[in-house]
């Protein structure tokens, strides 16, 4: 099981799991419930440079398309082919099998400035999202 306390969260509902200088990115359980049945995922190409809060991937439900933003700046080093093949992994396992891509983190302070899980739950409760 993933330890949610170790993840960091963006206001746009992405999570970041840091392993060394690599950050894995996915969307939260709250976000997958809002998006509903994910039927298509478009991932960034490996080697692409993304900026913090820049669009990095697209997730589509039956009804609509949603942008996924990079929570930190850096270079894309991995893309999860499993979610391209089976987009429903995003709904079934948002924090584990449903991750989208990994970024080589340029600036560790960007990761540190994201919300903790506790902050994120407060953020959801506040209704500001």
């Amino acid at each position, binding site marked *: 099981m993933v330890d949610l306390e170790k993840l960091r969260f963006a206001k746009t509902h992405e999570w970041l799991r840091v392993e060394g200088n690599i950050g894995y990115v996915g969307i939260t359980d709250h976000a997958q419930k809002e998006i*509903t*049945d994910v*039927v*298509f995922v478009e991932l960034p190409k490996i080697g692409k440079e993304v900026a913090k809060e820049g669009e990095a991937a*697209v997730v*589509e439900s*039956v*009804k*609509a398309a949603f942008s996924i933003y990079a929570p930190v700046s850096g270079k894309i080093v991995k893309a999860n082919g499993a979610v391209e093949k089976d987009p429903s992994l995003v709904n079934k396992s948002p924090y584990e099998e449903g991750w989208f891509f990994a970024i080589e983190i340029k600036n560790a302070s960007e990761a540190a400035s994201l919300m903790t899980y506790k902050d994120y739950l407060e953020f959801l409760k506040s209704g500001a999202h």
Partner: protein
Amino acid sequence: MTSIEDRKTPLYEAHRGLGAKIVSFHGWLLPIQYTSIIEEHNATRAKAGLFDISHLGKLEISGKYAKPFLQNIFTNNIEKAVPGKIVYSPLCKEDGGILDDVFIYNAGADRYILIVNASTFEKDLAWMRSRNKAGAVIKDINASLGGIALQGPASDTILAKLCGADLSQLKHRHFIEAKVDGCYALLSRSGYTGEDGFEMFIPAEESIKVWNDILEAGKSHGLIPAGLGARDTLRLEAGCPLYGTDTDETKTPLESGLERAVDFSKDFIGKEAMLEKKRKGVKEILAAFRMLDRAIPRTGYIIEKDGNEIGVVTSGTYSPTLKENIGFGYVKPDNSGAGCGFDIVIHGERKRAVVVETPFYRRKK
């Protein structure tokens, strides 16, 4: 987003009780989904789905001037609506622009029930009153009736448990006035999903009881409640255009693929304009297409041919049954025939699509 003006259907509390996600749809609070659009879609194709269709507008046209009035305002021939039969027709303006598409039920004895779209109800009513030179009696019966659609291959078996009428005698696009679950029902074999099934209009105050009893009777047959999300994917697969999305006042039946519901052998409002258009030729036609590249077309996306804009997507979705991406869009007539290829600009990239015949999905008989 909901606003204070949104109306609740007679089934609203039932949807809340089922934990539905509620949205505002043309002024009505309706369930978009209960659990999952795909689950509800698949259940309707494989077993059965139960839909709230109370938002559809209901009008009664009666009196000895009813028929000439309907013949004048509708493009299709009302003579086809023998008692017990339902006829589909566009309702057009003088310039041929489509105000709505309507189901006309001939209830006999100069009485007709019209089922119109939720989004156009007020407009239709005002239009009909303004064009009622014949002197037909036009009655708004919207609030008095709730509506339920039971759709899918198990519909017959499920409804037979609650309805004494011989359903095997009820043919497609025909209706009866019968008792369902002990309540009056305007009951038809019809729908908007491409499956066999029934639509019924019942007294508003008894709607929740009938809804719950059908759900209970259908439980062992795989029936689940289904929302607007599944209704939209089902109708798209079935190749049914949606008024306000795939057709509107800027289009005539000639552009919208509805010419089969226009009878040029009789007179009707909009006939001259449509004949003129037929002579000159239309500039755009509604085409059904499927994606060759993996990408989902959505309303408003641009259609291109060799880099030039030739049209726009009006509806698009991932098709849960076909497991491919499909849509409708207006394109120049040269590009509208089955087999024609074009590109759709999706997230800034050109993705290939090909025109196909409708329906996308046809049920096995």
